[in-house]
């Protein structure tokens, strides 16, 4: 190996520092709200104060005459311009074969509003304050209708109906698995463990609120939309093909630096739709920036399930069957991918890490007068994992078996493993991550720590969570057969410049994941060039031809695989050129460490020399080999990937106040091959924090009238530094056989694994299984009081 070349290369597996950080730490990041278009006007949305109401009349005359007002637009103007409804892109069929019931979802209300925050009108003015001033002067005559905000009540006889197309508010009644086989398993069971769980509704809350700037160029009859999107190409596709803003070739969507997404920036919302459309209508760029209170009202929420489930066990504690009945809240309208979350991203993971012969799951998805619910970090998989890991824990405790031993008894141990719920697990070693986690968490030392805590008057518990998730959603044909309206491949284009540096155009989108670093690391290691000679381009539909964006931990497994495929083509072509330059047979050219060499000789060329010659094209026949060195690829995965691992949470509870302190949190994950362990660990940390948030503090709460009670950070509890410990992180590795790099994906693991680990720890400490999320101090204290009352009565 040439030392000079190797020292410039950043290998896969190196914890190299991030390339993108310099602009963020110096305040030079460019987020949507940082941008301005000449002549831009500011948009402010008048939102429904009612959870359900008919708009009898809407008078904008006084408001329109106020200072600075450019235009006030409503559903009437939207209809006039034939702007289409917002859509849901995943078709789910009910058990009876009928398609899901999709209620009309206009970007501005036509005659009815269905949740607090629903879009009534947009005021466009010179300044935001003027737009707000005018919005206050719009007179809306509402006929307030009865509302249903409680998921449990939505299907009740006589409950208020949201959409005519959906009787009893049912979007679909769907099922997966073999009901008869499951019933048989229960008939033969020695033990049946029941559970009722609520998976609490969450607000994603990326710290950057959503924003959009629509800019119509009348000269070219073309639109540009800058927006806080995780998938700008999908936004363009939907806004073109369904909403009808403009044909794709006349609509450019740019997602610049995006300040976190966690799913909430996947979706195509009313606000960016209106900004794009209105920019033509008013003849000026139109800018909207969400404030946090609006974000609570209108960003899609996550989770929100009610579930009853039962686990069938044989006398030794082996799982025989699993039966699940879930009601999932969709909110007032179906958001972009809402229908896929409580179905194919949920029920397919109900086998967990366990060999379960029979599973049956029924899901009712229902409308309520609340904000739409869609993917939030983990999306369906946290709900599945919480259910599985809670019921498994309760089963172990009921059978008086050690929690780890019970899990071990039921682990899937040979691969590939076909579950009864679609998934085919390709690789894993669940015992390895369990063993390592127990060691890192000093599981064996727990009883002594518990005794010591009791001496201080504290209640201590330890909880396990052995999660599995499915990432890199694909193959496209498979998801298509399940109802997806899009393919879930990814694209990449590798452009080698004449001087040998490289631009990679990717359909993935980074909003914190560090693609500019990890993707460059891949190219550096493969081409043998320094990382600073590799630039990653993403987030602009004019630059990147098409892509599916970043969500579901797919950018490593799918996005980077596309880059590998394009790099393969670059290498193949460069070898041909090198063969001509070196006057050798193509088959004799080897490429290693940035050098093209003739096998068995000391003759070689550097990568940059070959790149330059690809463009000057002096030394090869252009009738056989086209000039240039630029290759594109679309990569469609052959299977999902299956990251899995074991998280262990240890808590201490103060019985006087009910406060739960997380004293240790250990995460051991198998993500397959790791490109940059520093970045991977960062992803795990963030996921754990969100999972702990769900378990201990976060919950979106609507009152009975559908008013949002947790409408700001004053009432919605976000995890703070003080609420969390430093984490103990470990990795185990089984290579993923389903993609060329062996990557599984790491973005959601923490959010999926943490909640049951925390609740299993708390329930152990409290000695009762009846602890719902979030386990707030007030709730935990009430549980302790009830338990003491029972204990006293028993004396």
């Amino acid at each position, binding site marked *: 190996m040439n030392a000079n070349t190797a020292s410039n290369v950043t290998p896969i597996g190196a914890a190299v520092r991030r390339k993108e950080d310099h602009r963020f730490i110096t305040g030079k990041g460019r987020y949507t709200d940082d941008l301005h278009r000449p002549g831009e006007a500011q948009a402010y949305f008048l939102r429904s104060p009612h959870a359900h109401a008919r708009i009898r009349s809407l008078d904008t005359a006084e408001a329109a005459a106020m200072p600075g007002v450019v235009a006030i637009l409503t559903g009437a103007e939207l209809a006039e311009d034939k702007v289409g409804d917002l859509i849901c892109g995943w078709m789910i069929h009910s058990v009876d074969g009928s398609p899901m019931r999709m209620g009309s979802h206009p970007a501005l209300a036509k005659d009815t509003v269905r949740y607090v925050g629903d879009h009534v009108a947009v005021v466009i003015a010179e300044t935001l304050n003027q737009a707000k001033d005018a919005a*206050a002067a719009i007179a809306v005559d509402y006929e307030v209708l009865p509302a249903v905000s409680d998921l449990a009540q939505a299907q009740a006889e006589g409950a208020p109906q949201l959409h005519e197309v959906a009787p009893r508010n049912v979007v679909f009644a769907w099922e997966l698995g073999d009901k008869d086989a499951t019933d048989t398993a229960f008939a033969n069971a020695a033990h049946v463990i029941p559970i009722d769980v609520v998976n609490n509704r969450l607000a994603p809350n990326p710290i950057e609120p959503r924003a959009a700037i629509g800019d119509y160029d009348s000269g070219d009859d073309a639109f540009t939309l800058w927006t806080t999107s995780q998938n700008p190409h999908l936004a363009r596709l939907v806004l073109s093909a369904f909403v009808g803003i403009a044909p794709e070739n006349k609509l450019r969507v740019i997602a610049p630096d995006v300040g976190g997404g966690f799913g909430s920036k996947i979706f195509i919302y009313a606000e960016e739709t209106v900004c794009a459309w209105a920019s033509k209508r008013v003849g000026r760029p139109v800018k909207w920036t969400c404030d946090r209170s609006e974000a609570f009202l209108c960003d899609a929420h996550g989770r929100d399930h009610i579930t009853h489930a039962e686990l069938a066990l044989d006398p030794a504690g082996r799982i025989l069957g699993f039966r699940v009945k879930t009601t999932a809240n969709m909110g007032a309208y179906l958001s972009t991918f809402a229908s896929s979350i409580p179905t194919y991203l949920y029920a397919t993971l109900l086998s967990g890490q366990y060999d379960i012969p029979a599973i049956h799951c029924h899901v009712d998805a229902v409308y309520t007068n609340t904000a739409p619910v869609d993917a939030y970090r983990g999306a369906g998989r946290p709900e599945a994992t919480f259910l599985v890991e809670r019921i498994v824990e309760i089963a172990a405790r009921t059978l008086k078996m050690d929690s780890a031993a019970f899990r071990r008894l039921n682990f899937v141990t040979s691969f590939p493993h076909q579950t009864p719920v679609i998934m085919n697990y390709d690789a894993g070693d669940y015992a390895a991550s369990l063993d390592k986690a127990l060691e890192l968490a000093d599981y064996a030392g727990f009883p002594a720590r518990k005794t010591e805590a009791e001496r201080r008057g504290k209640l201590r518990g330890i909880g396990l969570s052995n999660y599995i998730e499915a990432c890199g959603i694909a193959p496209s044909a498979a998801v298509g057969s399940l109802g997806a309206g899009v393919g879930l491949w990814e694209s990449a284009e590798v452009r080698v410049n004449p001087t040998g540096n490289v631009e990679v155009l990717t359909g993935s989108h980074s909003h914190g994941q560090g693609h500019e670093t990890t993707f460059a690391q891949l190219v550096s290691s493969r081409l043998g060039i320094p990382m600073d000679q590799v630039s990653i381009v993403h987030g602009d539909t004019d630059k990147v031809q098409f892509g599916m964006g970043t969500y579901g931990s797919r950018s490593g497994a799918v996005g980077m695989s596309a880059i590998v495929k394009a790099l393969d083509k670059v290498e193949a072509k460069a070898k041909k050129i090198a063969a001509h330059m070196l006057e050798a047979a193509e088959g004799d050219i080897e490429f290693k460490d940035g050098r093209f060499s003739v096998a068995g000789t000391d003759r070689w060329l550097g990568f940059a020399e070959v790149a330059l010659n690809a463009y000057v094209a002096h030394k090869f026949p252009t009738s056989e080999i086209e000039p240039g060195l630029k290759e594109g690829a679309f990569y469609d995965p052959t299977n999902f990937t299956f990251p899995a691992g074991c998280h262990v949470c240890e808590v201490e509870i103060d019985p006087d*106040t009910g406060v739960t302190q997380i004293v240790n949190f250990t995460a051991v994950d198998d993500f397959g091959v790791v490109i940059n362990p520093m970045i991977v660990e960062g992803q795990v940390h963030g996921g754990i924090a969100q999972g702990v948030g769900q378990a201990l503090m976060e919950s979106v709460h609507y009152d009975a009238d559908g008013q949002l009670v947790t409408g700001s950070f004053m*009432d*919605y*509890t976000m995890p703070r530094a003080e609420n969390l410990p430093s984490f103990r992180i470990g990795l185990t590795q089984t290579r993923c056989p389903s993609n060329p790099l062996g990557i599984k994906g790491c973005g959601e693991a923490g959010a999926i694994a943490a909640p049951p680990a925390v609740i299993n720890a708390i329930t152990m400490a409290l000695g009762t299984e009846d602890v719902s999320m979030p386990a707030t*101090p007030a709730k935990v204290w009430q549980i302790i*009081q009830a338990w003491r009352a029972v204990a006293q009565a028993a004396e």
Partner: protein
Amino acid sequence: MYAFDYQRPSALDEAVALLRDLDEPKVLAGGQTLLPTLKQRLAQPGSLVDLSRIPGLSGIERRGEGLFIGAMARHAQVATSPLVQEVIPALAELAGMIGDPAVRNRGTLGGSIANNDPTADYPAACLGLGASIVTNARTLVADDFFTGLFETALGEDELVVGVEFPAPARAGYAKFRNPASRYAMAGAFVAQMADGVRVAITGAGQGGVFRWAEAEEALHADFRPESIAELTLDASDIMSDLHGSADYRAQLVKVMTLRALVAALR
């Protein structure tokens, strides 16, 4: 925010005159509560009268055995003042627990007590120490100053100039933060004064800050944790909301009172 006029008087008389003469004026001290309120358009003042450039309103000085702290003294200033730390360390600690570091750099004593948010900290210190609130017109004892939720005895053109805090023999403050907002869900200020023990509770009362008479009596008899170990606070006048029932807050009041007492005894 709705539009408003902005006035920045350079003398107290001028400020008082502005408050008397302007249409719908509001006093701007540190602005840490007022500005979020204005941003959400929950108030529409005609003018803001900014007190920050009136000289002499932010001093901290010894007065008799106790302290006089100017209305415009920032929380961070009180928290780090060697004089406060020496004379009434519990007050310095309380100031250091308000909001977060950036909020403490702006928020003021006068702004806090004039607003009388039922979950604010300073009202507990004022009531717990039996402080006297000095305005441009008169001096009021804390027991008469705090009159209800966001209500004080201040007249429309009356301004807090400062607060006289008597020095306690021993005092302590403990609070349980609301997990979301970080305001007090229950805060207890316990002070052993020359003429008895005072226990002031913030964050929990439906009517705002209040004195817990039973705890005061018990501690006056014997200033030890055991004295209040068996006490329970009647929850009927205690707030109940999403973050905690009245029973839970009553429990927190008791626990915080115990912890404040332990701090006082330290």
